[in-house]
């Protein structure tokens, strides 16, 4: 039974203007397996899923479900064929409540058409949430929910109709470890019911843990497809990027100078009594779980939110920014977590994006010198190894890694005193990650103080000189990053010390 192909794809091809996104992909998924699908950004995973979901049409190729050739022209065809999708981006309607969002785009139950049978709807929504083992008030508008609960609602939506094959595209990025475990249990249950789960993720540890087989895509083709037991993290990485990666992190080389930033007993709604110091040339990692207050701490320092008590010092002078503008003027910059929402104006040119934060510095009179702007932006771009042929192209045309480099270029065009990074490698492919780590190292070596927040603990362990652990907005430990291993790191995150 385990060897029956429930879904088979042959010679699937798709080209966009100037890009061949898929070059004749052949792939099959078996009944009752959890199948990992990985690859760098731009490898073709998203295009493949969009074709199966009926969002885009393929140029060539055929799709077989249960041995039958099917044509998927729209989302209805996809769900008819038993394909369910849980998307990476949270497409929720903010002012709809939880159960309305769960059924968004699905067929509503009716007693008498067109009246919606809210009782049945509610019961079904309850069942789905129960299956996911989460408690979320059904009638709350989703805008009131935490990021984690919103992600769970988006996942619940994928279960509103039952199918044979579930596609999950980065379902766990916004989840805490507890919710992630619940999701994995659900995946296990689906598998035991003989359903197939296709799990797409950049988190290789997760993929290695829960899948039975892994398919690796690169440049629009399938390069490898093996049982998970035969793969390791390293082999997956080399297969994804097509070469060996010597080491994931550049060597540490820090030589801390004087104190740049200091916080003494700072408090606000989310942050409670945190004390910290960051030296010139030092990388301070913030350890903690999703939702522990890491992003809130950075936003407080960046002037997005304000202090209720305590004080901050920058170069031994009082520092109390009323807005990001004030923080930037003082030399503290942030690479925000949500690149597409907070970091880049996607439909403006690359050079406009790079120069946006330093307009006052680049054009003191208020009038623009376009040539100078372009030149300085290009230089900043080169410094972060941005790969683009044309700085006048829209930032949205770049790959995830290059987009992140644009954000880096923008924040360091005018060298900052302190650089804060929130999830700097989120959605960045493996090859570009190493470059980003090197850039962070170089900035530190040039004397910039750096604070880094990441959910990928390897990143904190590989980069930070010192780690500040926080839990529920409170500081738990500050520890030098020597001989720290993953287990100790996680214990500290949970507030336990050995």
């Amino acid at each position, binding site marked *: 039974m385990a060897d029956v192909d429930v879904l088979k794809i042959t010679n699937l091809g798709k080209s*966009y203007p100037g890009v061949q996104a898929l070059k004749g992909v052949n792939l099959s998924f078996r009944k009752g397996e959890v199948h990992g699908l990985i690859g760098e950004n731009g490898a073709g995973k998203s295009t493949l899923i969009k074709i199966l979901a009926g969002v885009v049409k393929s140029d060539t190729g055929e799709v077989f479900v249960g041995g039958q050739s099917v044509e998927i022209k729209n989302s209805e065809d996809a769900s008819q064929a038993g394909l369910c999708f849980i998307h990476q981006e949270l497409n929720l309607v903010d002012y709809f409540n939880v159960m309305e969002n769960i059924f968004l785009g699905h067929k509503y139950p009716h007693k008498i058409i067109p009246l919606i049978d809210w009782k049945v709807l509610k019961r079904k929504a309850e069942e789905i949430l129960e299956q996911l083992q989460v408690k979320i008030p059904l009638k709350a508008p989703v805008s009131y929910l935490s990021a984690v609960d919103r992600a769970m609602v988006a996942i619940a939506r994928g279960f509103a109709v039952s199918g044979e094959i579930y596609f999950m595209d980065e379902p766990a990025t916004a989840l805490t470890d507890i919710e992630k475990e619940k999701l994995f249990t659900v995946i296990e249950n689906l598998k035991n019911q003989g359903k197939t789960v296709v799990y797409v993720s950049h988190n290789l540890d997760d993929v290695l843990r829960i899948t039975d087989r892994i398919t690796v895509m690169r440049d629009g083709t399938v390069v490898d497809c093996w049982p998970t037991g035969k793969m390791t993290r390293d082999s997956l990485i080399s297969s994804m990027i097509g070469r060996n990666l010597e080491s994931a992190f550049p060597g540490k080389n820090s030589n801390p100078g004087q104190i740049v930033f200091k916080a003494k007993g700072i408090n606000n709604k989310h942050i409670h009594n945190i004390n910290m110091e960051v030296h010139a040339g030092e990388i301070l990692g913030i350890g903690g779980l999703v939702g522990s207050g890491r992003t809130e701490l950075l936003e407080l320092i960046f002037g997005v939110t304000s202090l209720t008590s305590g004080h901050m010092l920058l170069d031994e002078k009082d520092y109390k920014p009323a807005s*990001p*503008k004030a923080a930037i003027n003082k030399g503290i910059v942030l690479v925000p977590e949500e690149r597409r929402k907070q970091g*880049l104006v*996607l439909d*403006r040119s690359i050079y*406009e994006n790079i120069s946006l934060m330093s*307009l006052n510095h680049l054009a003191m009179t208020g009038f623009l010198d376009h040539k100078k702007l372009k030149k300085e932006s290009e230089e900043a771009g080169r410094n972060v190894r941005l790969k683009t042929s044309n700085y006048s192209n829209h930032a949205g045309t770049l790959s995830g890694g290059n987009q992140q480099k644009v954000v880096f270029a923008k924040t360091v065009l005018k060298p900052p005193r302190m650089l804060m990074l929130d999830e700097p490698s989120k959605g960045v492919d493996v090859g570009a990650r190493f470059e980003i780590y090197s850039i962070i190292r170089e900035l530190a070596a040039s004397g910039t103080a750096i604070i880094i927040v990441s959910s990928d603990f390897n990143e904190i362990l590989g980069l930070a000189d010192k780690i500040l652990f926080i839990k529920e907005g409170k500081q738990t430990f500050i520890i030098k990053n020597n001989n720290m291993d993953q287990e100790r790191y996680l214990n500290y995150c949970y507030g336990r010390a050995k």
Partner: protein
Amino acid sequence: MTVEKKQKKASNEFSAGKFIRTWGTLLGFILLLLIFTVIRPDVFPSGRNLKNVIEQVATLAIVASGVTVVMVTGDFDLSVGAIASLVGIVTAMLMKAGVNTPLSILIALLLGTGAGLINGVFIAYGGLSAFVGTLATMTAFSGVALLISGGTTLFGLPENFRFLGQGSLGIIPFSVLIMVAALLTVYTLLEQTTYGRRLYAIGGNAEVSFFSGIDTKKVRLMAFGISGFFAAIGGIVLTSRLYSAHPQAGSPFMLNAAAAVFLGMTAFREGEANLLGTLLGVLIMGVMGNGLNIMGINTYVQSILTGIIIILAVLLSSLAKKKA
């Protein structure tokens, strides 16, 4: 079909689509000119008539320049017509009360800018949506104009006030010079200053702009102030041209200015308010009105046709966008 062939085909489609998106509206305008020229070769292309068209659109172009600034940030300004009317009434009343003409104009300009800033405070700082905010102030400003004028047309303005709307320097009407100055100012503001860059950044993504250290509230507030300022200039020039002030004289600006900016968004740049586009939009509306008048077409039918043209232009450009 081989892969290369396909790719080539795709890239051809892409550039054709791009061409239509960038230049389609301009081509449409040229077509419009040709059609009217063919139908009435004796009247339409004459120098006198074309001068007439430009004179007619001058006030709209001034007001629409200001509205472009607001629309670049993704906001909207429905109140410009009411501001223009109110400013016209106030200018007339001041002059009739014996205040000298330049001072009356200066006060009226400050009033218009102030009215725009009020919009900005409600919208940028108070968090009202631009649509609701300016709808409300439009109603209120119209009310004030009607109230203080007693709802009637004010005549008997000083002779030296005529020049703005009716005088000319050499062969060039003075109102057209004001229009050119307004267009140049707004063009420079949008394309050559850091302020313009910030406006476009906010229009692209307000949250990114905030995180990039832009005082988004202040920038939006100023945009509404600028829109009010240009609405005031439009109102004053219109009052001078009509040589009388009517409490609803500026009303048509509200929809016509928005329509011109929307038409302009289909030209030169993809879906973005831009000043050259706005100018093209204003010209299309002016030429349409003039040409249809010459052909003797009923004004009600003209309205219908204008509506259809706007829908077609926006529809075609969004279709071209989808195809790419």
